[in-house]
């Protein structure tokens, strides 16, 4: 469904991604793990086209998307829940969520989607009229996730969704991701919470210094000694 | 400047360099560019007649939107271009700044725009002003009103209610100050004095305030668009006083009547003599010069149905100086020019009044005329010597209750 071929990405003269190739199949949960600054967020941003300084091919549903504009990528149903939330601080939670359904493909079903998001993230309904800028760290993260769901995604990319969430909520989010997948949305998950995310994943990639280092199914990697040593500190 | 080219062949002698500094950009660019055009015409005419002391006059232009720029540009003309005479400069502030430069270098400034008293009251040796001081212009309107208008209105001068409204730049302020002083002196009844910024877009409040004061005569000093706005607003609120005595610039501008049309009939515009009928000039040569100037000016500014006052003054200043003063100078340096300027006396310049400088460089022959708009034309109604029509419409037919 999503294919990356030999992506090389640069910030100025610094090369962040080196020949990254990977793929996500329809209906899968694919996890990407890696240390800080490995280039995970950069990779996702290349797909969303908010980072444009890269070479290589990106294919989504059999067609190239590596020269589209970010909004066109969204229009195809490829949605990112960004790292660091990136909410609209001076809009209310509700307005933030509604903007999640801005694209034409999801605009029509905005009302239903909002109900859906409220039902799985009840805290958001509670805070619907609060300015997003004054949410607590965790609440903001929930809002960002909710906003991503509003877009009716075909493929949803999460960049560190568990960041700053209480353990119980992390569990809920992982559960949620499973459920979303069940409803037919494909998932690409970037996570630092290595244990949780590998448990969830059908397949996983390990990225280090901008290179794909390992690839395999989630359980395998979780048990691999290299991963244990490098990322779990065991 | 070098020595005088005595007897030298006009073809081979060095040109005589003069400068012109006017605001050509910024808020005053309109009048500035007209003045510059007028100076150019004057130089052309002089050159066609053989130039100054056998030397062709060469013009160096400069743009000075504000006093700081005026200082720099005056420096360029004086030090870089080596001009001996500068014509300028429309705004009093610029004139004062230029004088600061020219005075130090022994260069002559011939001022035909700035009317602030300070210019000739500050002891400058080489600054000559052809126009009246601002105070005079304001005062002339007041004196005329007390002497002639009050009787026409059947009101004793001391009962005559008058008001002053002026734009707040140094121009408007100095004219208004002159008017106020005269009003106090003659014991007229000053019921209001207000000033405003000439970029004002709505005069309703001002006019409504004025309406309360119910003046019989309104003295006003404006630039062109505020003059139009003032008359429009006075009419809209039915607040036109019996007599509207404009004191220069805006109300004398050809576009004034052009824009407001028939309503201008009877509105006074005190100013230096302007657009005088040719028969005022006894001298045949001067008649030709004036008509040539007007013709060429109109060609350059086809939109205008009359030559603007500022341009007439700029022409008069530069032409008189080049044609009448400089030929009398023993040497074409500051000393020689000063002597010639102070000793030369003329009965008539192209402005209709004479040339008679005091030691301060002020032309005490300068006068202000009382003019009136009649049928879209400026008609001089006073002094009798220059008069070419009788007063009409006192009180104004459009005056409010």
């Amino acid at each position, binding site marked *: 469904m999503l294919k990356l071929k030999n992506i090389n990405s640069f910030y100025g003269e610094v090369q962040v991604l080196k020949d990254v190739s990977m793929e996500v199949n329809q209906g899968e949960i694919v996890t990407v793990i890696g240390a800080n600054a490995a280039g995970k967020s950069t990779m996702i941003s290349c797909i969303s086209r*908010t980072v444009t300084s890269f070479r290589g091919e990106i294919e989504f549903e059999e067609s190239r998307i590596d020269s589209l504009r970010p909004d066109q990528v969204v229009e195809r149903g490829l949605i990112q829940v*960004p790292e660091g939330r990136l909410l609209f601080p001076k*809009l209310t939670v509700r307005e933030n969520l509604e*903007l999640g359904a*801005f694209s034409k493909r999801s605009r029509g079903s905005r009302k239903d989607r909002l109900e859906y998001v409220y039902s799985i993230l009840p805290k958001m309904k509670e805070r619907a009229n609060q300015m997003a800028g004054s949410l607590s760290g965790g609440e903001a993260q929930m809002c960002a996730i909710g906003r991503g769901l509003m877009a009716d995604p075909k493929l949803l990319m999460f960049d560190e969704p568990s960041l700053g969430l209480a353990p119980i909520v992390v569990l809920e989010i992982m559960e949620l991701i499973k459920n979303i997948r069940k409803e037919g949305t494909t998932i690409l998950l970037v996570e630092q919470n290595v244990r949780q995310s590998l448990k969830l994943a059908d397949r996983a990639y390990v990225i280090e210094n901008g290179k794909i280092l390992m690839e395999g199914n989630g359980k395998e990697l979780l048990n691999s000694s290299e991963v244990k040593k490098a990322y779990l500190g065991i | 400047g070098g020595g005088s080219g005595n007897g030298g062949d006009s073809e081979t002698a060095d040109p005589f360099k003069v400068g012109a500094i006017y605001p050509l950009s910024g808020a005053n660019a309109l009048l500035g560019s007209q003045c510059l055009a007028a100076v150019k015409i004057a130089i052309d005419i002089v050159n066609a007649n053989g130039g100054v002391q056998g030397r062709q006059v060469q013009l160096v232009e400069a743009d000075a939107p504000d006093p700081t720029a005026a200082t720099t540009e005056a420096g360029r003309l004086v030090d870089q271009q080596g001009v001996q005479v500068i014509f300028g400069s429309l705004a009093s502030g610029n004139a004062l700044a230029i004088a600061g430069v020219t005075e130090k270098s022994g260069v002559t400034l011939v001022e035909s725009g700035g009317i602030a008293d300070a210019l000739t009251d500050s002891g400058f040796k080489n600054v000559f002003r052809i126009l009246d001081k601002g105070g005079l212009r304001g005062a002339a309107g007041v004196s005329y009103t007390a002497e002639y208008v009050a009787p026409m209105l059947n009101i004793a001068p001391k009962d005559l209610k008058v008001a002053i409204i002026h734009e707040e730049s140094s121009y408007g302020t100095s004219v208004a100050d002159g008017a106020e002083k005269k009003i106090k002196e003659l014991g007229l009844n000053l019921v209001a004095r207000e000033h405003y910024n000439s970029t004002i*877009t709505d005069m*309703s*409040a001002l006019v409504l305030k004025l309406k309360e004061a119910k003046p019989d005569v309104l003295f006003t000093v404006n630039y062109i668009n505020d003059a139009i706005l003032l008359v429009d607003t006075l*009419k*809209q609120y039915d607040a036109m006083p019996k007599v509207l005595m404009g004191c220069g610039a805006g109300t004398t501008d050809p576009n004034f009547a052009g824009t407001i049309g028939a309503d201008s009939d009877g509105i006074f515009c005190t100013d230096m003599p302007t657009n005088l009928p040719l028969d005022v000039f006894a001298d045949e040569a001067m008649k030709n010069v004036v008509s040539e100037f007007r013709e060429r000016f109109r060609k350059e500014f086809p939109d205008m149905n009359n030559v603007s006052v500022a341009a007439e003054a700029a022409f008069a200043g530069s032409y008189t100086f080049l044609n009448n003063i400089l030929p009398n100078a023993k040497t074409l340096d500051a000393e020689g020019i000063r002597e010639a300027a102070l000793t030369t006396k003329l009965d008539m310049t192209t402005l209709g009044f004479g040339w008679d400088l005091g030691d301060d460089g002020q032309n005490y022959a300068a006068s202000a005329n009382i003019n009136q708009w009649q049928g879209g034309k400026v008609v001089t109604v006073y002094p009798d010597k220059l008069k070419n029509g009788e007063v009409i419409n006192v009180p104004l037919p459009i005056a409010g209750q």
Partner: protein
Amino acid sequence: MEQVLQVLISGILSGGIYALASVGLALIFGVVGLVNFAHGEYLMLAMYIAYWIYNFSGLDPYQSLIINLAVMAVIGYITFKVIMERVLDSDHSIQMLLTLALSMVLQNLALMFWKADYRNIRIDMTNDTMNLGFLTFNTPRVLAFLIAIGASVLLYLYLQKTFTGAAMRAISQNGKAAQLMGINIKRTYGLAFVIGTTLVGLAGLLISPIYPAYPTVGASFSTLAFIVVVLGGLSSVPGAIFGGLVIGVVESLAGYFAGPAYQQAAYFLLFILVLVFKPNGLFGRS
């Protein structure tokens, strides 16, 4: 009393035009986050265009409204494409400065093309008045007021009721996030810029029968529009409408009670007072 009422009304009428001149600025600020110092220059351009059309075809500013607005939209679009689009990600100070430079260019272009002459449009209506009891209204000013308020309200509704409007409000807060929502940032920025310049153009057009065009006419409106917009709370359209009316009234009252010399000082003073007590403007959300 009658006088004061009359003064008040004349203030409100001017206020309507100030409001219209300002809503565009508020919109551009709200969306692009840009303080557009060249704002007034678009007003100037529209006045010149109105004058031109009037001169060549005899169409008065109301008749040429559509053409004029179309031209303004095109001019807005061109400036956006050629200049603003390139600095969307730059520092605010850079953007601000760029608009300053732009205003310099436009003013001087006008000076070169049209000379410094005042260009008046006198139509039959210019001095018409309408009377209501003891009150007098200048017809072009009333017309300008009605159209101005109408246009401002339309803009407000557009921003509130349409999704594009919502996008416009979101975009300035976080451009990257807006992209991730599927908002075409450049297009939205461009749209806001074009609407903004067209609206201030409309304001210019509406005052062209009562006020002459000259190269620096925009400058005084620019400052005024800033004051209005800040009073209203920067990016708030209703705030700008309200702010415009307030400034109009204050200016008028100050002119009447203190004298026209104090008109500007009065609204600047009001402005400072408001900021002292409500640092985010009258309508600003903190």
